[in-house]
């Protein structure tokens, strides 16, 4: 057995460096569940989800046992509900949210995403109804995640929707105030949203997708950090090569799991998402990788360059290891879900402005950031607009998942527990963006030439 060291390397990655498969996400199309009768439509939705995903959790557990690699979450994404529900005469979609949540509980998945709306250019009847239902829907459900796409590179930015979402986030924070405004942790505002993202809270099943599909998200910041610890002081060429090789190995494990899940569930394999997804556990942090590359504390000067290198090298290594890469595929930088990021905020090295710069070079955006509860909705809208502009101009996905924690001020801390972690409340600009947001209308799509 001359493979001893290689086997031990894999064992070490799993046992000591938190290598895991973050999620097996089954995408399910609900396009055949429309009905003019809301009740009938919801019954169809419940039946389809519970039938298609009947064995998802069981198969996930089987694969975990077979390969000895943890599969942290099993999830479902569905067609954006605004498209399905608007065939009905309902004037509020909270009942749809409850049925989807119930279906998720029946099949035992950790999250279900798709209480979503795509309004990058304008609202259809169902979009307005769905977005207005989001706060109550997130208040009354547990597993449900919601997302709204407010801009893309070909359409520009729908500033009416940006304004609307600032208000919706505030309402959601208020309704879920007894639980640290946790509703906002399950609500993402996107620009350039992707249709095959397996990660929450932004997963939905795009209309261009098959009836059902298996998407897999891998993880492994701890493995990358451990590999970089062995090349201390060496040049960036070595850093990049080391990340690529590590990413290749992680992705191959993900592809194996994806193939197996697809076979056992008899559902086609969609994509593998290469994102490095951190957890609040020590040794599973993206911020600590950046510090390993040479920044004293995440957020210090050089952080953006280090993150750009990391994000690019992860993709280069991963792309060759998987037959289909998709989703968001990059490095995530959620604050509350990353032990190193939390530490950096507390140490004063990381603030919203630096995080915004970092989102220019990685997926996905201002993620899991808690801000003071009295932040005006126009300021939240303006934060969304800034982030959307970065995405729309640079042809990349960006997102905002921000929590105006009710009753909290800068310096406080809120705890969510589990994968969502804990978040120090970060200060936002005191200067008003009210007049900017009040304008409404659309920011036109950018020119695709003369790039500078």
């Amino acid at each position, binding site marked *: *057995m001359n*493979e*001893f060291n*290689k*086997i*031990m*390397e*894999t*064992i070490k990655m799993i046992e000591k460096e938190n290598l895991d498969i973050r999620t097996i996400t089954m995408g399910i199309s609900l396009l055949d569940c429309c009905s003019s009768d809301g009740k009938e439509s919801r019954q169809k939705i419940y039946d389809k989800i519970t039938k298609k995903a009947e064995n998802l959790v069981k198969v996930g557990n*089987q694969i975990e*046992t*077979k*390969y*000895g*690699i943890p599969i942290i979450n099993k999830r479902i994404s569905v067609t954006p509900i605004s498209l399905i529900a608007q065939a009905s005469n309902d004037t509020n979609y909270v009942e749809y949210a409850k049925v989807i949540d119930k279906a998720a509980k029946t099949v035992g998945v950790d999250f279900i995403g798709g209480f979503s709306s795509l309004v990058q250019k304008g609202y259809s009847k169902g979009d307005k109804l769905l977005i207005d239902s989001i706060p109550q829907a997130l208040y009354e459900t547990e597993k449900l995640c919601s997302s709204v796409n407010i801009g893309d590179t070909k359409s520009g930015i729908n500033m009416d929707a940006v304004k609307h979402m600032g208000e919706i986030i505030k309402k959601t924070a208020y309704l879920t105030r007894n639980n640290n405004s946790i509703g906002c942790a399950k609500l993402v505002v996107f620009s350039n949203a992707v249709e095959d993202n397996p990660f929450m809270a932004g997963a939905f099943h795009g209309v261009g997708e098959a009836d059902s599909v298996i998407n897999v998200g891998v993880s492994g910041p701890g493995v990358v950090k451990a590999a970089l610890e062995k090349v201390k002081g060496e040049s960036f060429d070595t850093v990049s090569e080391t990340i690529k090789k590590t990413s290749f*190995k992680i992705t*191959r*494990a993900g*592809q*194996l799991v994806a193939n197996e899940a697809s076979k056992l569930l008899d559902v086609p394999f969609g994509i593998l998402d290469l994102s490095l997804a951190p957890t609040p556990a020590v040794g599973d942090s993206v911020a600590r990788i950046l510090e390993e590359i040479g920044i004293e504390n995440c957020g210090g000067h050089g952080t953006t360059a280090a993150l750009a290198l990391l994000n690019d090298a992860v993709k280069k290594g991963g792309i060759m290891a998987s037959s289909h890469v998709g989703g968001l595929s990059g490095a995530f930088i959620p604050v509350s879900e990353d032990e190193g990021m939390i530490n950096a905020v507390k140490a004063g090295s990381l603030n919203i402005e630096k995080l915004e710069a970092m989102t220019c070079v990685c997926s996905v955006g201002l993620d899991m950031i808690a801000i003071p509860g009295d932040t005006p909705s126009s300021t939240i809208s303006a934060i969304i607009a800034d982030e959307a502009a970065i995405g729309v101009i640079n042809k990349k996905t960006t997102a905002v998942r921000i929590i105006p924690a009710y009753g909290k001020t800068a310096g406080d801390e809120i705890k969510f527990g589990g994968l969502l972690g804990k978040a120090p409340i970060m200060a936002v600009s005191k200067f008003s963006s009210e007049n900017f947001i009040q304008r409404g209308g659309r920011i036109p799509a950018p020119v695709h030439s003369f790039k500078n």
Partner: protein
Amino acid sequence: MKAVITVIGKDKIGIISKVTTVLSKEKVNILDISQTILQDYFTMLMLVDLTKLNISLNQLNNILNKEGKKVGVSVKIQHEDIFNAMHKL
């Protein structure tokens, strides 16, 4: 199917005997064994054939874990494909 069993823990008398007794009882054929002491830790890898396994993989996993605990070692069984996927082209 072929799998790799990893046994890691503090060295003491009877570890191999404990593990192989379970394997023999459940009709698991051992194809190769490699063992070393890494930083005072007993580390053993076994390549095994599970074609004739008479219980489920999950059950075997549980029994191995239980027996391993009795002698203070961690025992893990994993399909060989995870190692092939990560380290071979």
